[in-house]
C-alpha cells in the first residue's frame, strides 16, 4: 500500500531535507562572514530534481538497470541534495567570498520555501485524512 510513499510525498520529503541542509549551509556562510579565506557553499537540489524528472511528460521511459544509466523520460527517484563550494569569486580583500546581502536574501527565501513545503505536506496529509474518514 502506497499511502505515504507516493512520488508527491518523497519529492516533498526531499525538498524539505534539502531546505534543512541549505539552512545549515547558509548559517555557516553567515557565521564565517569575517573569516579570512573562507569560501561560501551552496546546496543544489531543485535543478537536480528537475534533471531527474526530465523535461515535459514524455511517454517514452527508458529502463535503468544500473544507477549510472542516463535516465530517459520521467524517473521516480529523488536525487540527494549536493553541497558545492564556490571557489571562483572574491568579495573583498581577505579573499572571503561571502556576500552578506545575498546570503540574507537566500536565507529569507529558504525559510519561505520551507514553510511552503511544510504547508503543502500538511495539505496532502489533510486530503488523505478526508479520504480515510470519508468526510470533510
Amino acid at each position: 500500500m502506497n499511502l505515504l510513499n507516493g512520488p508527491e510525498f518523497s519529492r516533498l520529503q526531499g525538498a524539505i531535507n534539502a531546505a534543512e541542509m541549505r539552512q545549515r549551509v547558509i548559517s555557516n556562510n553567515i557565521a564565517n562572514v569575517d573569516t579570512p579565506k573562507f569560501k561560501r557553499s551552496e546546496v543544489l537540489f531543485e535543478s537536480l530534481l528537475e534533471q531527474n524528472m526530465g523535461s515535459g511528460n514524455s511517454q517514452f521511459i527508458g529502463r535503468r538497470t544500473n544507477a549510472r544509466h542516463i535516465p530517459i523520460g520521467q524517473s521516480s527517484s529523488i536525487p540527494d541534495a549536493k553541497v558545492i563550494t564556490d571557489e571562483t569569486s572574491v568579495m573583498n580583500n581577505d579573499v572571503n567570498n561571502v556576500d552578506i546581502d545575498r546570503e540574507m536574501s537566500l536565507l529569507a527565501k529558504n525559510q519561505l520555501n520551507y514553510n511552503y513545503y511544510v504547508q503543502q505536506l500538511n495539505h496532502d496529509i489533510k486530503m488523505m485524512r478526508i479520504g480515510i474518514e470519508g468526510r470533510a
Partner: protein
Amino acid sequence: MRLSNGFDASASALTAQRLRMDVISSNIANAETTRGKYVNGKYEPYQRKMVVLQPTSDSFADILNGQMSGASGASPGVKATRIIEDQTPAKLVYDPSHPDADENGYVKMPNVDVLKEMVDMISASRSYEANITALNATKGMFVKALEIGK
C-alpha cells in the same frame, strides 16, 4: 536532528563576534595606555589586539568524518583560534611633561587607531545582528516542522 546544526553555526558565530567586540572594547579603552607591559625595567605601551577567526571544520578529522559518513558539507560554524597583537610600531608623541617620556621628550603611545576600531566595531555588531537573524530563521523553521501532520 540535523536542523540543530544551523543553531550551532549561528551560536558559534555569536560567540566569536562577541569576543571580537570585547577585544575592540579593550583596544579603545586602552588607546592612551602607555604602561601596557613592564619589560626589562621599562614600560611598553599597550599593543592593539586582534582576533583570529577560522572555520570549525578545518581539521583533517572533521573532513575525513564528513567524507566517511557521506554527509556532504562539513560541520558548520566558526571559532576564534587566538588573539594576536598588532606588531606595528608604537606612535611617538612629543610630550616632555608626560611621566613616561624618554630623554628627548617623546612618549610611545599605543598603536591603536580609534577610527579603525570604530569601523571594526560596526562590522562586528552588524555580523552579530545577521547571525541573530539566521538563528531566528532556523528557529522559525524548527517550529514549523513541529506542525507537520497536525
